[in-house]
């Protein structure tokens, strides 16, 4: 990690959704601002900037993290994934995304990218997750529209679908 000095801008180089990117960031710049305003990756949303709402959740080296609680300069050399990376190709949705559409797991969609990134990371490591575990992981996210029931239903439907796919591939 580079030495931080006041008023300097630092070159930050990292992988974003599989591509190497570089940007200049002030010491104090948040990663959420770097992603959204310097790199144009506006799929990551900012809801509170103090780590509670979870809307800005991304994956850093495979683990979910709040982009609003990370300084841009800290990300040098890391592998970052955002919601833009989830769909397998343009015009298609991942199993998780498709389950959200099917089960009406979103309304305004503002909190959704963060929720998808948390669930994507979790289901990758725990494809057989139980409802209780899913709820626990979702509890780090605030959604004001849905009342959560359809989000849980979407996550469970995705687990079911992933299990089916796994069986077919086995």
């Amino acid at each position, binding site marked *: 990690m580079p030495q931080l000095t006041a008023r300097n801008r630092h070159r930050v180089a990292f992988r974003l959704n599989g591509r190497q990117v570089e940007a200049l960031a002030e010491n104090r710049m948040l990663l959420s601002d770097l992603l*959204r305003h310097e790199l144009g990756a506006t799929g990551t949303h900012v809801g509170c900037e103090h780590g509670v709402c979870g809307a800005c959740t991304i994956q850093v080296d495979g683990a979910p993290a709040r982009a609003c609680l990370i300084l841009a300069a800290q990300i040098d050399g890391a592998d970052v994934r955002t919601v833009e990376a989830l769909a397998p190709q343009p015009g298609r949705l991942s199993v998780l*995304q498709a389950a959200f559409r099917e089960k009406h797991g979103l*309304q305004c969609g*503002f*909190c959704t990218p963060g929720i998808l990134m948390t669930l994507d990371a979790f289901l990758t490591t725990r494809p057989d997750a139980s409802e209780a575990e899913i709820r*626990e992981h979702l509890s780090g996210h605030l959604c*004001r529209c849905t009342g*959560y029931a359809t989000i849980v239903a979407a996550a469970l439907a995705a687990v079911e679908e992933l299990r089916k796919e796994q069986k077919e591939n086995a």
Partner: protein
Amino acid sequence: MSVNQESTGLVGRSMPRVEDAALLTGRGRYIDDLPTRRDTAHLAILRSPHAHAEIRSINASKALALDGVHAVITGDDVASLTRSLTVGVKANVECWPMARERVRYVGEPVALVVAETRYLAEDALDLIEVDYGVLPVVMDPKAALQDEAPLLHPSLGSNCISERSFRYGDPEKAFSEARHRIAVEISYPRNSCTPIETYGVIAEYDPGEDAYDVTANFQGPFSIHAVVALALKVPGNRMRLRTPPDSGGSFGVKQGVFVYAILAAVAARISGRPVKWIEDRLEHLMASVSATNRVTRLEAAVEPDGRVTALSWDQIEDCGAHLRAPEPATLYRMHGNMTGAYAISNLAIRNRVVLTNKTPTGLNRGFGGPQIYYPLERLMHRIADELGLDRLEVIRRNLVPSGAFPYRTASGALLDSGDYVAAFEAALKDGGFDDLVERRKRAREAGKLYGIGLAAAVEPSVSNMGYITTVLTPQERAKAGPKNGAQAVATIGIDPLGAVTVKVASVPQGQGHRTVLAQVVADRLGLPFEAVRVNTELDTGRDAWSIASGNYSSRFAAAVAGTARLAADRIRERLAAIAASQLNVEAAQVEFAGGRIFDRNNPDNSVSFNRVAASSHWAPGTLPDGIGHTIRETVFWTPEQLEAPTPVDGINSSLCHGFIFDFCGIEIDPATGAVRIDKYVTMHDCGRILHSGMVEGQVRGAFAQAVGAALFEEYAYGEDGSFLSGTLADYLMPTVMETPEPVILHYESPSPFTPLGAKGVGEGNCMSTPVCIANAIADATGASDITLPLSPGRIADLIFGEEKPSSNPQARKPAKARPGERQLTGEGSATVAASREAVWKMLLDPATLEAIIPGAHGVEKVSATHFRADVTLGVGPVKGRYRAEIKLSDMVEPEAVTLSGSTQGALGFGSGVGRITLTDADGKTVVGYRYEAGIGGKVASVGGRLLDGAARVVIGQFFQALARHAGGGSGGGGILARLKALLGGRS
């Protein structure tokens, strides 16, 4: 009036939403995602740390000197380019979008900075010096009515900005003849449905045309457009207002962004460049808008069988520091249905609107509903209990009877359709009420605290734009001219390839309007769902719109979708005529299905929809006479039932009235006071259901917000007016863990007044659920006075009685520890290795003070007893610069002195008084201190939980530094400290 059933049947089906693919892949276009001009600058807002203060001066010279700062704008600058906002009542009061001369709530804008980046703009905020003269505050709506209350607006001569009394039927007679009079008194708290996306505005000004162009995540009503244009002193056609394609939720709240649309527009004009502002979370919680808090006394005249013959309402509505448009609408939105779901023909209402030192109020989901159903349904519960009747029976006896619809209420609402009794009975049966009673019995037998709550409500939707004029007297209304109706609009366009586009002014905030409109129009034109595209972005410079446009009062399904249907009908009629001429049949014989138009009696005789649809573009001369064209059809629709208030103040405040009956079982953990919602059943009659998935989504979403309002959420203020809920760790929204899944039941009574038979459904549970939960808590605890939110502390009070002061009070504890108050007291002593005279000199010496005041940069001696310093202090993660004033008084040299200090900075303010005593102890001096301090502003909003400890540390540091500076030991005087002091010697 009959309702046509669709033939192809997309309507009513739970289609996947057309909105979702973009939102799920990060391609939504919310306000902060939109492209802006390259020269766009960023706006940041300096906000008042005080709830009530005079602004003596604003010095922006340091801020303006900062590189990258384009402008610093004060309230007077804004006033020079604008007009005071239109106020909805007749009152001698000014209402500016930001403070001038005086601040009236914590978070009120005081100065605007326009800079190259948001980071720089916020740097500049810290450099603006504002000199405030703090004034006494009034926070409680009842206290605001007292003669001795501090006045917010001296021109009003009172804090009561509106008072009206109403009577319908003969309430006096009903009360005098009643066998029982039963009353409740309720203080409904402040809360908000707080969307996850905050406000945002992008504004430009064109000096060549004297025209503003503003994009904001505004949700309507577009009557507010008139308020904005009037404030900016331009005709409406020079105030172009646009909305982004996507919005991150609103629930009414984003109506309040209009104030910032005005500020950003002025900032763009003054700075000469486009200006962008995205509100941060603290700003949103502290100063966006809130629902009103209300104090209500509601009394009923009751027969021995529980039949209510009259209601008398006395409502004191707290709209905060300014009456902002469209307030006092919260108070009048429900005016037609103040008798709820009940047939009560005698009604008295006294309404007072008061101003207090809180954030101005505005739209919030449920708008006025929670504030009336909480008292009304608590009252029905109390009536049953006081008369020893069954609670269900009291509700049943009072419901508007079956077969009475459309039913005119005492205050003038026309309840359009329904069978409340049947829906109520169906809810009890299908929702398993008897099982729940059994469950309660078993739980209680097992020693648990278990209660059942009930609530019945009428959910109004499609507001009459004239209801707010009920606040005016009939004479004032006659003078101003009648206001009524609610124009909805939809446009259907057909392009040269025959493709259909629907355009509406409904400004969705995530509900899926585009999907439902595609269903409605595709059904009518016999097209596949995918063939119809819908655009819901609104641009007042280009689109069809009116004052009722926007997303509020649950008007979409009932009004907007219905209007789209009417537009589709008109286009269909003309397409049928064109097709008939091509098919050589009568128009009445023509059918639309599967993308073709055909002869019903001979389906092979057909022509493609696109071909017929495109003919107005390519071959207008071939169209049958009198058809005109099918290129574009715009329909405006306003229901005739939405009449202006009558001369006797009758008002049909809404077009549609859904019915709700809820019941729930809750269990309280007696050890923690935590509430678990064991079962929640909610029955809705929202007329015809257009999309069952979305209806359920609306019900669940409102329910979750209502669980928050019932159990967790409150915009809390300290007695000094400090705002105490400035983070999402303080303002607690329910997570998935606290939100149970309700059982949702439906009873469909189509509205005879809407084109599709649909009614609104989005707000009902915000109205019914808080009181349903409160009634269950009352049932579980036996308590009669229940105040929201029912936090574990409040529940513990209900179970065990209020917490008593400790029998062994510690001197260091605050004398009175009221919730929310940030009063600190403390005392201590330090031994200093110097004579009393030497210590005395130090206290009067700026160089010493600089060395010992924690974080001091430069201490300036104003007079022998007055010092000024710049101080940097951190509370938890929040570090800020403050300007400190320190004064010495009551000086008894060299024995005692009183030190009073105040600090002021971007992050807040503090003040305190400390008495310092110097006692001789063998040539050394014992410095004793005792202090009282209070802290407010931003640090109180975001750091409340850390503040007490942090303040004690800072004060302790001061005295320890004094001891060290004098070469003495520190506070407790440990051996190591004494050793250090000996080695260190005198400085």
